């Protein structure tokens, strides 16, 4: 009964979405207030029905209802309760339902927080989101019904892929989808502005907090995915340039460009058309990411059973959304008009350069990701190639380095017109400090690569330039330093924090890349291996039993100067339901570095192959991402968004009274 309720709820949500995607839009074009007024209640209704459907599916998973195909394929009665909940979005069908749920949540959020928007604008925004919702609900109901029944019911479920049985899996998809789907708000605002012909600073101010919020979620989602891969895949990498990772990274790059370009449009009224195009691109890449990951064209943990109908549906949907949006852009954008003028040396120019570099980088990632697929398709499956990490590193580092360098210059440059001598005066110390540390640190450490020098230079450069920008910023205020700092708006603090996050990230990536040590060794009981001042001693394995697996649990003692400082327990698990083997690494996390031990295979009764890694500063990579996301969140709480919205309310009140 419960699955049927879920299915019915989905159908009802689709009906509401169809009305929402058409009537308020038509109402906004023709000025019919009653039609426009429908958009908000319809958004609420959709959220209600989609939430009911989602809860029904969760309920089926919790109760291990193996008469539902989806549950029988992706769960098991032995699976712990929290992973049964996570299994709701562990399958293709469930994850698409999660996508729609996120879309409904964003829609409802827009409906609540954007009441001060002009009626036409809000109706159009919600309508565009409604149309996207129609597409995804149709996709669910026609090709990927999560509530399909199995007759007769299975006696036991297949189990959730053991790789996905990890705390990271509980948080990664919802966060990532919040980000992906969040760009639909920016997209909807862009389309609404094109339709209404109103594309100005106010539009940018409305759209900006939504874009920043989506960007924060996407940052966190990618970060958790990377952390999950590090913990769970057992070979200690944090980024593989896997097509699926690229699928989430491309919208992030374009989203980052969009966040910066929106700032220019809001402050200076410039880059309007460019900003709209970026908003369309960011969401298109989110859709493309969904297509790449869900259509089964890629070999990865994310790709589920291949079904041509699904691939075709998403492809057509993709063509309609992207093609339609670009068509509208081509028709309307020429009439938008130019923005504020600026000189060659100005903050606008620096932000434009940052945008161009980010987009070109995203383009090169797109090329590397799609090229093998295109070649495979064109050659009829005869030419199969793979594009690996060396390609992406060779292209990405030279493109991103100037971008990161400009990050130091942009925040201190004036809008409209800046002077190079002035910039030099402000930044010369920062430049000297970063150059000196890039030259001296490798000397002190006894050599290092050019990559190390470049990475150190960039990390210290952002740090030092940020300090310089803070000094410059508070120079013209009165009072004690902490008072002057407290006076600065939160949006500015958010930017500063996010930029520092990039510095921390670059430092982490550089140091891990240069100084990490990885060794695969054969160890018998009592054998020791020395690495980076630590002695690892293998003390054998014992059999342990988990809730749904059996495992060989190793004991590896870490000694420093002859004293035992740490005991690590890596595991080799065998899951009962699937019989699948899984490596569970034991990681000792520290600010200065991680010690990482995982079990390979048993070689004989007394010895195992063991993987021992030392990863200096690896946590800095994720800490940097957390700082970036926190910076975004801080910017969201800036009071000017709240002030302006009350001000607008007053304005709207005045206009309607008149």
């Amino acid at each position, binding site marked *: 009964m419960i699955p049927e309720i879920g299915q019915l709820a989905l159908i009802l949500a689709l009906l509401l979405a169809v009305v929402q995607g058409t009537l308020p839009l038509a109402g906004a074009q023709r000025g019919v207030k009653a039609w426009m007024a429908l958009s908000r209640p319809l958004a609420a209704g959709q959220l209600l029905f989609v939430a009911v459907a989602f809860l029904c599916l969760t309920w089926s998973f919790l109760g291990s209802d193996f008469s539902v195909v989806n549950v029988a394929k992706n769960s098991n009665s032995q699976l712990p309760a929290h992973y049964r909940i996570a299994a709701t979005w562990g399958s293709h069908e469930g994850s698409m339902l999660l996508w729609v749920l996120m879309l409904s949540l964003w829609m409802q959020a827009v409906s609540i927080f954007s009441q001060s928007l002009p009626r036409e604008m809000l109706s159009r925004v919600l309508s565009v989101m409604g149309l996207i919702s129609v597409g995804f609900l149709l996709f669910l109901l026609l090709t990927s019904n999560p509530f399909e029944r199995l007759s007769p019911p299975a006696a036991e479920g297949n189990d959730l*892929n053991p*790789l996905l049985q990890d705390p990271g899996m509980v948080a990664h998809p919802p966060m990532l989808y919040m980000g992906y789907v969040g760009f639909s708000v920016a997209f909807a605002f862009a389309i609404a502005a094109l339709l209404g012909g109103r594309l100005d600073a106010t539009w940018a101010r409305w759209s900006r907090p939504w874009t920043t919020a989506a960007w924060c979620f996407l940052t966190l989602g990618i970060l958790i995915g990377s952390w999950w891969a590090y913990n769970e*895949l*057992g070979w200690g990498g944090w980024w593989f340039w896997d097509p699926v990772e690229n699928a989430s990274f491309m919208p992030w790059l374009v989203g980052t460009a969009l966040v910066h370009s929106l700032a220019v449009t809001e402050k200076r009224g410039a880059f309007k058309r460019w900003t709209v195009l970026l908003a369309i691109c960011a969401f298109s890449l989110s859709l493309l990411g969904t297509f790449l990951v869900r259509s089964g064209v890629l*070999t*990865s*943990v994310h790709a589920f059973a291949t079904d041509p109908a699904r691939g075709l549906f998403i492809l057509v949907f993709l063509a309609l959304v992207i093609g339609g949006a670009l068509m509208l852009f081509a028709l309307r954008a020429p009439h938008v008009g130019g923005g504020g*003028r600026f*000189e*060659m040396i100005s903050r606008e*120019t620096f932000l*434009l*350069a940052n945008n*161009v*570099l980010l987009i*070109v980088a995203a*383009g*090169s990632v797109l*090329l*590397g990701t799609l*090229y093998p697929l295109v070649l495979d398709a064109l050659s009829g*499956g005869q*030419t*199969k*190639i*793979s*594009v*690996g990490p*060396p*390609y992406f590193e*060779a*292209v990405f580092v*030279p*493109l991103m380095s100037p971008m990161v360098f400009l990050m130091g210059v942009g925040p201190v440059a004036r809008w409209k017109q800046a002077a190079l001598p002035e910039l030099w005066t402000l930044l010369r110390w920062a430049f000297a400090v970063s150059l000196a540390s890039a030259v001296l640190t490798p000397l002190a450490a006894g050599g290092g690569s050019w990559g190390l020098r470049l990475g150190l230079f960039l990390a210290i450069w952002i740090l030092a330039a940020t300090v310089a920008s803070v000094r410059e910023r508070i120079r013209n205020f009165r009072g004690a330093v902490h008072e002057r700092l407290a006076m600065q708006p939160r949006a500015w603090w958010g930017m500063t924090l996010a930029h520092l996050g990039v510095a921390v990230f670059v430092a982490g990536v550089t140091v891990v890349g240069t100084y990490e040590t990885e060794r*695969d*060794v*054969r160890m018998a009981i009592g054998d020791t291996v020395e690495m980076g001042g630590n002695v690892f001693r293998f003390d054998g394995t014992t059999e342990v039993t988990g809730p749904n697996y059996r495992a060989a649990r190793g004991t590896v003692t870490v000694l420093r100067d002859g004293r035992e400082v740490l005991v690590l327990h890596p595991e080799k698990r065998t899951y009962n339901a*699937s*019989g*699948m*083997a*899984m*490596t569970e690494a034991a990681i000792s996390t520290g600010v200065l570095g991680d010690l990482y031990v995982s079990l*390979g*295979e048993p*070689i004989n009764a007394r*010895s195992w*192959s063991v*993987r021992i890694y030392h990863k200096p500063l690896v946590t800095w990579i994720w800490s940097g991402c957390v700082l970036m996301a926190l910076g975004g969140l801080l910017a969201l709480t800036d009071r000017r968004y709240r002030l302006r919205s009350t001000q607008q309310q007053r304005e709207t009140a005045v206009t309607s009274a008149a």
Partner: protein
Amino acid sequence: MKARHKRGLLIAAGVVVLAVAAGLVLSAFQKNLVFFFTPSQVVAREVPIGKPFRIGGMVAERSLQREPDGLTVRFVVTDTVKSVPVMYTGILPDLFKEGQGVVAQGKVGDDGVFVATEVLAKHDENYMPPEAAHAVEQAQNAQKTLIGN
């Protein structure tokens, strides 16, 4: 500077960035594209010499041997028609099994042994790497044609 000149300069700068990026992409493609070959192609010596490439197929039953050092393994990858001996030093992925699909990256030596630097994992027990499936399919089609003739 006139607005027209400024715009021209900005566009020129954009074109330069794009040209540099295109150059980077092309040179990186040239150096880093890894082609895929089936065991039959390896045996027929249709593969690049001294350049890394990928092979895929099934791990032949009872072919897995471990050297005394415990870390070097030898196994045979087959497309059910032709087979290639493979050597790998390191820890094999969890889902590596005899009789299952596998993809490996490395170079082939003069002795015809494929020395793998990377053995790629599948993520799911029931999942066959498309490259491995492709290799088996190709080999069987080729054989059918031979018998047909």
